[in-house]
């Protein structure tokens, strides 16, 4: 691994919706490097347009990431067809549905449809992310990683806890990920938010690679009833989205 690129990744991590602007001094302090080194990274990222410089000499994310994200063929299909099937699933089940992709050790939410009586936590809104190990969709997607990569990700540091019931022991998380791979459906109960349970199933591309997960969130007391009567509909939604991706984004030859 190139340490300079890993450091660049850490710098990019700082730029979020809640902290959109950073200066060289702040970045230097946050990554423990000299101000000149932080400046070299920031101005290089500006030169390739992943960052832009504000009038006050600070930095923000640049539009290059938008241009690159639009080059991801599956993205448009996932968003367009994803919303359609998520809406249908939310309408027939009455529960909140969402579509997420895996990003590092996080689950990134691409889309969410919340019906009138569905749960609407701030976590899980489109554009937000949650630690992957504690969400059903994240567990499903982590299972697609090569075993050494998954082991390294789970052992790279303490796993964040959001509730009393969040699984943070890497061995326990691994068990749940393996169970999700075997059953084709991942579960998380009161682990991301107290009183909210999630189920998730995978979306595959034309090459058969798992690229996203369709999830459903509900009050925990409705989980058993959902599993016995509605889970099939969740699987159908994921199959339909996979079919749309396969139809519109050809497998590489």
């Amino acid at each position, binding site marked *: 691994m*190139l340490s300079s690129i890993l450091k660049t990744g850490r710098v990019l991590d700082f*730029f979020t919706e809640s902290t959109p*602007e950073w200066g060289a001094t702040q970045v230097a302090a946050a990554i423990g490097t000299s101000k000149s080194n932080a400046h070299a990274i920031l101005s290089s990222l500006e030169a390739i347009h992943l960052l832009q410089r504000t009038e006050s000499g600070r930095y923000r994310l640049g*539009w290059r990431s*938008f241009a690159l*994200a639009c080059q991801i063929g599956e993205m448009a299909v996932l968003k367009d067809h994803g919303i359609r099937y998520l809406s249908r699933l939310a309408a027939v089940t009455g529960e909140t549905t969402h579509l997420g*992709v895996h*990003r590092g050790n996080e689950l990134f939410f691409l889309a969410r449809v919340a019906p009138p009586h569905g749960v609407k936590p701030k976590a899980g809104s489109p554009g937000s992310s949650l630690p992957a190990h504690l969400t059903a969709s994240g567990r499903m997607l982590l299972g697609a990683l090569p075993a050494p990569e998954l082991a390294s990700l789970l052992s790279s540091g303490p796993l964040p806890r959001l509730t009393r019931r969040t699984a943070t022991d890497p061995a326990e998380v691994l068990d749940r990920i393996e169970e999700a791979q075997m059953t084709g459906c991942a579960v998380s109960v009161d682990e991301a938010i107290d009183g909210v349970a999630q189920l998730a199933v995978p979306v595959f591309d034309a090459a058969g690679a798992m690229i996203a997960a369709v999830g459903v969130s509900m009050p925990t007391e409705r989980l058993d009833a959902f599993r016995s009567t509605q889970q099939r509909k969740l699987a159908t939604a994921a199959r339909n989205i996979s079919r749309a991706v396969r139809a519109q984004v050809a497998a590489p030859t």
Partner: protein
Amino acid sequence: MTGGIGPPAYPTRRPVLGTIEKSDQVLRLFSTERAEWSVVDVAQALGTPTSSAHELLSSLTAIGLLRRTDKGRYRLGWRLVSMASDTVVGNGFAGRGAPEVRRLARRLGHTGYLTVWDGEWPLVLTSTVPQGGVTGPQMRRGAQLPGYASASAKVLLAAMPATEVEWHAATIGLLGVGDMLAEHRRKLRTTLLATAASGFGADIEESTPGVCSVALPVRRGDRVVAALAIAMRPADYAACDRRQLLAALADTADRLSQDAPARP
């Protein structure tokens, strides 16, 4: 635009770190037409040893800018999607760019689109094609518009310092074909001065045959941050009330220029 066009030196440019420059070269390889690259292909394209390409690709995968398929090839990573989302939010367009463009396009009955300068080209953030509106690949979300002939490009370039415009003209060419001829640069300079003076950009079939467009700037304070444009067929452009068209554009551009409301 301020001042005249000088020598091709963009004074704010600094030396780029080698690994970040290489990363840029790798990211440029990926497109919708060629979404997957192997280590060997990347090594060939960059003219580097396979081991260096492997190290670069693995590192970019580790930070999420690329992802590795189960066949060991590489694609652009989902992290770009979350960065794109944060960029839209950070620039105050989340939840209102697309609805405002949709309303404008429906009201006028013509194609509407919002573009920003991505560092090298005008980039379409969102577009709406109403029933019967002109359409084409250049109107789609994520499309990069012709360097200087489009109405949006004129608005965005007219707001830049002359040295920066000259740098783009000399290095990227603004036409995608390299350095611009002196004659083209002179024409560009005149066009941008006229755009800055009139407050709007116009493209009468310059960038796309059969399409005319008009664009106005979207501002944050004194800065132009985007261009709002309407495109139509030449016959519709000849017949339309230009004053009404500009007033409708200005109305929407003003709303988009206001600070974004705080997100709940």
